[in-house]
């Protein structure tokens, strides 16, 4: 029977919450096509995750729990997805375009010579069964309307936060079918040696709120301790840690940075937003001490509300901001942290 397949991503045996957005978009497609919505869950704890997927709208689930699927590796995951597509010929394979999902769906679409449309922000089922989508190209300067091929399986990855999850039905149950992995460990060329988890950080890609710092973080009024190699770098690092992070913590926000701040060694590259960094679209983006170079805009221009805090009233960031404050971020951010604490009752 034909179906809409939704890949539910897991990490350490837990569902990645943005996966539920794919079940939201998948439900609409499945209903329009009058076919079931099937959750695919591979790896540790897949059965429990599949049960949760039912509460988010999946009619049934296909799971595979095997040591070869503990921790995402492209080869075993893609081989299994491709086998399921070849055997069952689903109409659609859909996932939220996290880094792993983009990789997995692209690989399987190549294996099966199928259409693939990524970073989808809107979708519409046409009468011929082909899915028409909108997706940003040229760093969001242009919108591309594209269509998949109804003649075969259509693979789609959604831009995070572009689609809403279904309302949870806590008593919903799904039929769970278990399948064996396609590849044995000996057939897999890649081996995970170790993993060092970044401590206490919120994932930028799916953050609802991001607090970002730029070159202005160097204007920390604190004195650097005697003997540090570079007083400016120390001040900026201290500012990220002791001024920006407390605000992020109150808001449950992720910490971002401009390329200038990363290149100057103020904060690791993993935090960079913009071209050659991450593309984000949170509900709220607070840019502090960021001038708003075009390369930075490329990564955050689709944020819903942008707040700019900068000492230079002429900074380009104010042209894209909803709210602007001209002033010393080292006075404003602590005041803002205190205010949020008070108002949000934390």
């Amino acid at each position, binding site marked *: 029977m034909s179906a809409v397949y939704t890949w539910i991503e897991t990490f350490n045996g837990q569902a990645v919450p943005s996966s539920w957005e794919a079940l939201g978009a998948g439900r609409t497609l499945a209903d329009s096509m009058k076919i079931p919505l099937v959750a695919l869950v591979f790896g540790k704890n897949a059965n429990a995750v599949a049960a949760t997927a039912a509460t988010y709208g999946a009619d049934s689930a296909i799971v595979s729990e095997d040591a070869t699927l503990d921790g995402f590796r492209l080869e075993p995951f893609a081989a299994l997805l491709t086998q399921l597509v070849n055997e069952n010929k689903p109409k659609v394979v859909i996932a939220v375009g996290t880094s792993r999902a983009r990789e997995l769906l692209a690989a399987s*679409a190549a294996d099966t010579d199928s259409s693939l449309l990524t970073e989808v922000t809107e979708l519409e089922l046409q009468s011929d069964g082909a899915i028409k989508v909108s997706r940003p190209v*040229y760093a969001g300067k242009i919108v591309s309307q594209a269509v998949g091929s109804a003649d075969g399986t259509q693979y789609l990855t959604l831009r995070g936060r572009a689609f809403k999850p279904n309302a949870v039905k806590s008593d919903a149950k799904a039929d769970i079918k278990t399948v064996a992995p396609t590849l044995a460990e000996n057939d897999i060329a890649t*081996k995970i040696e170790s993993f060092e*988890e970044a401590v206490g950080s919120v994932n930028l890609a799916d953050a609802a709120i991001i607090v970002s710092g730029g070159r202005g973080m160097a204007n920390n009024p604190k004195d650097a301790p005697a003997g540090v190699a570079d007083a400016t770098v120390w001040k900026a690092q201290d500012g990220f840690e002791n001024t920006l992070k407390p605000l992020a913590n109150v808001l449950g926000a992720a910490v971002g940075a401009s390329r200038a701040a990363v290149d100057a060694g103020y904060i690791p590259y993993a935090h960079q937003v913009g071209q050659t960094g991450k593309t984000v679209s949170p509900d709220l983006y607070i840019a502090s001490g960021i001038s708003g170079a075009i390369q930075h805009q490329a990564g955050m*221009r689709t944020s819903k509300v942008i707040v700019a805090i900068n000492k230079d009233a002429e900074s380009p960031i*104010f042209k894209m901001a909803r709210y602007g404050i001209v002033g010393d971020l080292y006075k404003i951010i602590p005041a803002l942290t205190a*205010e949020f604490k008070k108002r949000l009752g934390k």
Partner: protein
Amino acid sequence: MHVIVMTRSTPDTAAKVEVGKDGNVTWGDAATVVNPWDEYALEEAILQAKNADGKATVIAVGPEMNNDALKHSLAMGLNEAVRVWDAALENADSLAYATAAAGAIKKLGDVDLVILGKESIDVGTDQHNYQIARKLGWPMLSYVSKILAVDYAAKTIKVERLLEEGKQIVTSKLPAVISVMKDINEPRYPSFIGIRKAAKAAIPEWSLADLGVTLPGTKSKVLAFSNPPAREVKVEMIDGTPEEQAAKLVDRLLEDKVL
């Protein structure tokens, strides 16, 4: 040892890119640049070839404007450049692109490693990277932030990958395809002599027939391009003491239901 790197010409980030009267994307007279992510891939290919006393070849799949990216690559120090183009690749999707790219890599023969930039800023995706690996049938290591060890004789590689949740160390057999992140290296600027040499280089153009490749057929099609709706933002400047500014801003954000 032979390392391959893929590149392409993209409009400069600062260029005004818009939909022209004919419905196509245009950036006027603005120059193109090497896809910004590819600079790290090109640099890494040069370093790998140098370390192993091998050869680094750069490939672009696309029309003639991609020669600019290839000449920039040669000027940086890549040994050879090839461009793949064919009328059948006009308006090609990622699947066709990847099939052609994999065909070119196979035609080059004994390839040990393919290095790719993390994504392409023009098409706004990285999907072609993984599809090249699958069309080659080689393992893919994405988001590589460091090559920790590589042994071209034993055909093994060990890398650090930068993931959303942290850093992962992975080993793989070679040949393999890797995509690299920004902090893997500091791309060099082309030297003056390099630029002069590259300007004179003749870049061979291979057709699909030269590669012996048949495309799987274009599965996805672009219907139209449009300019995104103008961002209706009028900035509201908030004045007062820092405490007043903070209170007003939080008021606004709560009114807007952002929080």
